[in-house]
């Protein structure tokens, strides 16, 4: 075991996959000469050359679409979208085409492509640059949407994504890049762990309440659970990891065990991913519920730039902790 950053986990896994398979290549804005806006592709151009590390024009629809076409001919592109906010420019290719090709042509060809993209608020980037809009892509059958929360998960999920034959939107969170965590020593070897796409993770077992998150919120959930453990509250932390396909089973089983749930999400509440999870719990574990399912989400505003406003808008350790305590109080268990 060693301790590395989320950024390093991604970079080393991608490098290893490029060495393993000649068909894997990188494409995106500023990934080569500039070495990536968030430096995931640092050193890649020098190591692999222009054929396999392609700087593109600012042309999101053009290069995402090109990646799809190249994947139809058997290449395995890893496309970097500078941030998920710009994915909307390429939405026609991402939504109308990539996830449809396999079904629309009766299973004759598929699109083994990874679109890597950071998202998330908390960096004072303002309304158009702070969005978590993975929901749009999670809505689409044929798409796979992954959102790992730890360096170990990032490595295992990236390896799974590159080897998968379907289009994968790989969501990174700006707030996670520098976060550290333990990874197995072989994390970047061909023999390293490969995540099972469509499986949620249980980051921490507990018996009083289930806390569900993904990406940055799963990391935050672990922190909340650790703090509450000191107050003798046992929180089970579920990391969705795979937003589509969604693992309802793990969620339902956990809630059946604990009897209550709080969902923490870094995106807007209305029609959001938390709504889907709450509905799944209601469908699958209604009889086990001792209290209504609570959701903690981003304030429903275009995210402001000013730091106090932005902080107030985002879920925090405090707001998640409060939701957990209120839920447990409703259950009849008096906590602080």
């Amino acid at each position, binding site marked *: 075991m060693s301790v590395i950053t989320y950024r390093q986990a991604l970079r080393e896994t991608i490098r290893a996959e490029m060495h393993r398979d000649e068909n894997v*290549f990188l494409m995106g804005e500023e990934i080569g000469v500039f070495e990536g806006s968030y430096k995931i592709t640092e050193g890649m151009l020098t190591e692999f050359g222009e*054929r396999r590390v*392609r700087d*593109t*024009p600012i*042309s999101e*629809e*053009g*290069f*995402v*679409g*090109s*990646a*799809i*076409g*190249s*994947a*139809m*001919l*058997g*290449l395995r592109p890893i496309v970097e979208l500078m941030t998920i906010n710009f994915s909307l420019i390429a939405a*026609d*290719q991402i939504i*109308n*085409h990539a996830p449809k*090709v*396999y*079904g*629309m*042509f*009766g*299973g*004759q*060809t*598929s*699109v*083994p492509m990874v679109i890597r993209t950071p998202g998330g608020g908390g960096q004072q980037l303002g309304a158009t640059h702070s969005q978590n809009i993975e929901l749009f892509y999670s809505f689409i*059958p*044929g798409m*796979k949407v992954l959102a790992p929360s730890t360096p170990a998960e990032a490595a295992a999920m990236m390896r799974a994504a590159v080897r*998968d*034959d*379907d289009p994968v939107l790989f969501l990174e969170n700006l707030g996670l890049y520098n976060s550290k965590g333990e990874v197995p020593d072989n994390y970047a070897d061909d023999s390293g762990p490969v995540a*099972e*796409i*469509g*499986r949620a993770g249980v980051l921490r077992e507990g018996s009083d309440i289930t806390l569900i998150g993904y990406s940055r919120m799963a990391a935050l959930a672990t922190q909340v659970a650790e703090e509450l453990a000191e107050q003798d509250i046992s929180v089970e932390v579920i990391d969705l990891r795979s937003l589509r*396909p969604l*693992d*309802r*089973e793990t969620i339902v089983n956990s809630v059946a065990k604990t009897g209550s749930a709080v969902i923490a999400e870094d995106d807007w509440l209305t029609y959001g991913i938390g709504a889907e999870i709450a509905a799944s719990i209601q469908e699958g574990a209604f009889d086990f519920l001792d209290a209504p399912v609570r959701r903690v989400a981003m304030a429903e505003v275009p995210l402001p730039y000013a730091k106090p406003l932005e902080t107030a808008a985002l879920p925090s350790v405090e707001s998640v902790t409060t939701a957990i305590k209120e839920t447990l109080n409703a259950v009849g268990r008096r906590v602080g």
Partner: protein
Amino acid sequence: MADTAKPKSGSAAKNSGGRRRSRKGTPTAVADESPEVLREYYRRMLLIRRFEERTGQAYTQARIGGYCHLNLGEEATVVGLMTALQERDYLFANYRDHGYAIEKGIEPRRVMAELYGRSTGTSKGWGGSMHMYDTDARMLGGWGIVGGQLPMATGAAMAVSYRGGDEVVMCQMGDGTTNIGAWHESLNIASLWNLPIVYVVINNYLGMGTTVDMSSAEPDLYKRGCAFRIEGERVDGQDVLAVRDTARNLVERARSEQRPFLMETMSYRMKGHSVVDPAKYRSKEDAQEARSNDPLAAFESQLEEAGVLDEDRKKEIADAVRQEVADAADFAENSPHPDASTLFDYTYASPVANESTRMPADPVFAD
């Protein structure tokens, strides 16, 4: 003020008849080509014509659903373009794709079966009229979103270049497509990266009811590659030999010079945008001009005059074509519908063990 010298049609309501249709290129004379080849082109154009007529009929009888866009009037373009491709070359087309699919090497009966939504169709009934596809024929799809196929075709050419292959990608589209963002992005990338691709604009002067003059600030579409340093050529799309020669030249140059080209074929769409469109926006003169520019009739009389086609041969070809189209329709008619139990078979190429296929209240889909 805008340049008032530029001719603009006034409104969508009635398109003017007197369209400027400059045609370029030096077409091969019929006399320079062998009779067998000429008769073969004629047969193929006739096949597409009869196939499309049958398609229109079947649509009216509700044997075919969805949208249905025909190639009537564009047969010379279809055959000329496809003749220019080698078997190993790839084609991306728009939704007006039946003729292209047949010409690229998919059996007419499989194209018809796709139109009927049967499991024997090119896409097992999952695609329909707009989505003909066959990996072996290297027909990489008809695509239904205007311009959506351009980035993907560009990426296919990139894959060819990545591997150092010598295939060429042809990307077909209509004139209306040249104003969408994907067009500009694709041409720019193809030129930057020296990709072996030929973008072909079928200029039938109309995108639904909107004319080229109404939609394109530079209506000479073949010139519009200049912003990307892409050479363009315009050709008479009603002349199968001219289309073939121009396309062949550009395809072979794309192959040997490893760079993109732009081609524009001046065509006429004889009927409405789709089977259900009565084309009321078309002026009488314009509709008349389209009808009188029937490329099949013109080619037929050319061949007759040259002594390549006589009544017997014509009948022989017509009979064979009629038979082939009837066979395609019978095949489609008698093919099985896809079974509802296959509904979840094509969501993912890498299946997910945990994926729920349950639909509430439907016992058929219970796990």
